């Protein structure tokens, strides 16, 4: 098989790109797709052709003049809240919430008359100013996008475009210019830490595997992003799959592996498809194969689709799953670096870690270290979700404060109906079911691996779920406990039975059955589960409980002793009452009540029959006079 000439490919692509006068990039991330992005894409192709302008949907090397407009799709552009997103280059205009009905207007106003369509531009809620593009929108200008930079701009299914942007140059350098030892040293020097949650130094992991005498080794990409509230890895696999392959190629060179697996969560069908296509394209072009860059080394990559088990994110469980077994973790040592897949030395790196590797080689370790903090260099992607104005995918240097992320990038906290709530911030949940909650006191804490550990939370994979004052923290703890209880593989007794008991105790608390000893017992059991479990799932399963107990103990006590839920979320503790002084007897609530529990004469104060009431809260929402409280 012939090796692809990267320089020639780049030249061909750049020549072809000269025939493109304007490029329209439609975000085809999961969020925008769900809002109809592909309809917008197709409408653009039709509308441009109808306007008599030459249009194409794929940039091919043989393209020559006449000049054309290229309509392409990209991976997630990050600003999911405002989708579907459409970017126009070279104008650098970003249109938000674009529907197929807006397309004709864009073609006439922008493509033909070179004016922006003001109504589709993002308006900064703070100033009311119309922002023209990503260089003008605070959500983007306050970020440092490096891993995500190409994700959202390039066409993820076009290998040539990846190469034209300098892609696979670092893989070639790794195979033709650098020794395995030098690669491990460079990554160790960069201080890169695993982005999957633990933050283990990647260079050390590689070195441990490199020195194993066994000739057969494996590289595995962990794309089993199971943390609820996290979608960074999905976006990278969907938006820039070749960067993950390049990272794997470099890893394979550093440890001496000739075979690898990409384990992708089954809930991510598009990521599976894109990774498979990327491998097929790279093999067809001679980037991957039996003789990488003429250096005499082979690399074969396979995609393995997960089957729905959160515990498979744990590396030994993931290996068992690839081997066709139940995904149950095994004790360490031996570490996968010594005895991993089929008993051979194996490196498992997270998607984001692998996508960062080529960037580090390109910049150099010392340049890379300039971003972030000394203990946690570089940038980190976060999935910002929950009660926040700008939900989406963001990337910031380690050490950025929570305040910057939530209020400046995220645009502040919102109520359930989506309106701004300046005083609404209650907590942010970080690190999923293994992580913890951060409160108002932590808003100015620089976020990195070590500082978060110090306050009982963790970076985890990077899900940040913002919660407003109406969120009951006991219920959040219960939510995560239900998750881990469900996902416990059952191997360790304390994880299997302990999480079940903890869930039962949390049910007692939220349903008013807890007594004076409940909290002490819950804490004791939480500590036991932490100590008595083998893998990360069990060891961290009690974290959401312990963290909320630490920061929101008063809320737990209100449930236990006062039998009330301060946030008003626990229905079993709700005691809806009509304040006779405020009730005007308008009968609006009577009509809305689904179980006819409210009675009363017109223009006389009404009352609620507690034995019939199902505490649904419809009456309180209906009442214009705020006369109904306690639900």
């Amino acid at each position, binding site marked *: 098989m012939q090796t692809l000439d990267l320089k020639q490919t780049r030249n061909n692509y750049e020549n072809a790109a000269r025939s493109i006068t304007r490029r329209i990039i439609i975000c085809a991330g*999961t*969020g925008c*797709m*769900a*809002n109809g992005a592909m309809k917008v894409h197709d409408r653009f192709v039709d509308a441009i052709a109808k306007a008599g302008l030459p249009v194409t949907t794929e940039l091919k090397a043989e393209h020559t003049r006449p000049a054309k407009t290229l309509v392409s799709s990209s991976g997630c552009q990050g600003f*999911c*809240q405002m*989708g579907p997103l459409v970017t126009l280059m070279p104008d650098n205009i970003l249109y938000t919430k674009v529907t197929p009905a807006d397309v004709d207007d864009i073609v006439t106003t922008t493509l033909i008359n070179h004016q922006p369509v003001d109504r589709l531009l993002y308006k900064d809620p703070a100033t009311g100013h119309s922002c023209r593009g990503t260089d003008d929108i605070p959500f983007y200008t306050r970020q440092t996008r490096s891993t995500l930079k190409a994700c959202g701009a390039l066409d993820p299914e076009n290998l040539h475009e990846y190469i034209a942007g300098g892609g696979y140059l670092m893989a070639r350098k790794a195979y033709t210019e650098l020794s395995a030892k030098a690669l491990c040293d460079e990554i160790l020097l960069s201080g890169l830490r695993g982005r999957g949650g633990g933050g283990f130094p990647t260079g050390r992991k590689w070195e441990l595997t490199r020195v194993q005498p066994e000739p057969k080794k494996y590289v595995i990409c962990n794309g089993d*992003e*199971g*943390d*609820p*509230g*996290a*979608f960074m890895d*999905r976006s990278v696999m969907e938006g820039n799959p070749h960067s993950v392959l390049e990272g794997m190629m470099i890893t394979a060179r550093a440890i001496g592996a000739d075979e690898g697996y990409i384990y992708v*969560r*089954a*809930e*991510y*069908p598009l990521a599976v498809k894109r990774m498979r296509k990327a491998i097929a394209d790279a093999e067809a072009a001679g980037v991957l194969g039996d003789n990488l860059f003429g250096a005499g080394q082979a690399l074969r990559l396979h995609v*393995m*689709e*997960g*089957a*729905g*088990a*959160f515990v498979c994110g744990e590396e030994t469980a993931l290996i068992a*799953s*690839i*081997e*066709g*077994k*139940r*995904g149950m973790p095994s004790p360490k040592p031996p570490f996968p670096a010594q005895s991993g897949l089929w008993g051979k030395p194996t490196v498992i790196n997270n998607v984001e870690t692998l996508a960062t590797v080529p960037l580090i080689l390109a910049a150099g370790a010392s340049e890379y270290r300039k971003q972030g903090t000394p203990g946690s260099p570089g940038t980190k992607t976060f*999935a910002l*979700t*929950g*009660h926040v104005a700008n*939900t*989406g*995918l963001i990337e910031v240097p380690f050490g950025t404060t929570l305040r910057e992320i939530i209020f400046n990038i995220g645009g502040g906290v919102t109520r*359930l109906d989506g309106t701004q709530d300046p005083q609404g911030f209650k907590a942010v*949940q970080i690190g*999923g079911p293994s992580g913890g909650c951060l409160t108002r006191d932590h808003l100015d804490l620089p976020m990195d691996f070590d500082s978060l550990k110090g306050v009982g939370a963790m970076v985890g994979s990077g*899900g940040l*779920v913002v*919660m407003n004052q109406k*969120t009951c923290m006991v219920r*959040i703890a219960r*939510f*995560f406990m239900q*998750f881990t209880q469900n*996902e416990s*593989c059952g191997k360790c007794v304390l994880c299997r039975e302990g999480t079940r008991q903890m869930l039962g105790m949390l049910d007692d608390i939220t349903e008013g059955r807890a007594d004076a000893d409940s909290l002490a017992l819950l804490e004791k059991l939480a500590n036991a589960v932490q100590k008595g479990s083998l893998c990360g799932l069990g060891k961290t399963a009690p974290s959401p409980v312990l963290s909320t107990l630490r920061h929101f103990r008063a809320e737990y006590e209100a449930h236990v002793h006062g039998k009330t839920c301060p946030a008003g979320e626990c229905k079993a503790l709700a005691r809806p009452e009509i304040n006779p002084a405020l009730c005007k007897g308008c009968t609006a609530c009577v009509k809305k009540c689904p179980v006819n529990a409210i009675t009363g004469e017109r223009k006389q104060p009404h009352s609620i029959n507690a034995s019939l009431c199902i505490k649904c809260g419809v009456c309180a929402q209906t009442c214009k006079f705020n006369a109904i409280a306690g639900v």
Partner: protein
Amino acid sequence: MTTPRNKFDKVCGILDRYERKPAQLIPILQAVQEEYRYLTEEMMTYVATSLGLPPARVYGVATFYSHFALEPKGKYVIRLCDGTACHVKGSNPILEVLWKKLNLSEQKKTTPDLLFTVETVSCLGACGLAPVVVINEEIFGQVTPEKACQLVDDIMAKEKN
């Protein structure tokens, strides 16, 4: 009429595609499920024997991973995301409405006419759109209980015609 021989033709094709390697058990079961929509005891035993594995091992894998179904699923599988972001944005009332509308529950996930299955999933990774509902492959974002009912009504109307 189905004869015992051709009944397993498709499974044999799948087994051959994966070279009858026991290590490929999970992809094989995924392919079998895609073909038949769920895994019967007979199929699992057949796969086990063909791969030279004990049936208990195949059953163990099939019950360990949540994607394998041992009972038939409905024509329309409604998957409601109950990830953290969807949860705090109100996925629970949507589930209650869907259960009530289709007369389903935690234990009873599929309607008797095999038209609908309602399941929850931990996270679909579309948190920017929370709460999210996926019907077969199609994703719906920012769903409300009313919108969820409407989606079900639309399918029912389509099926009647």
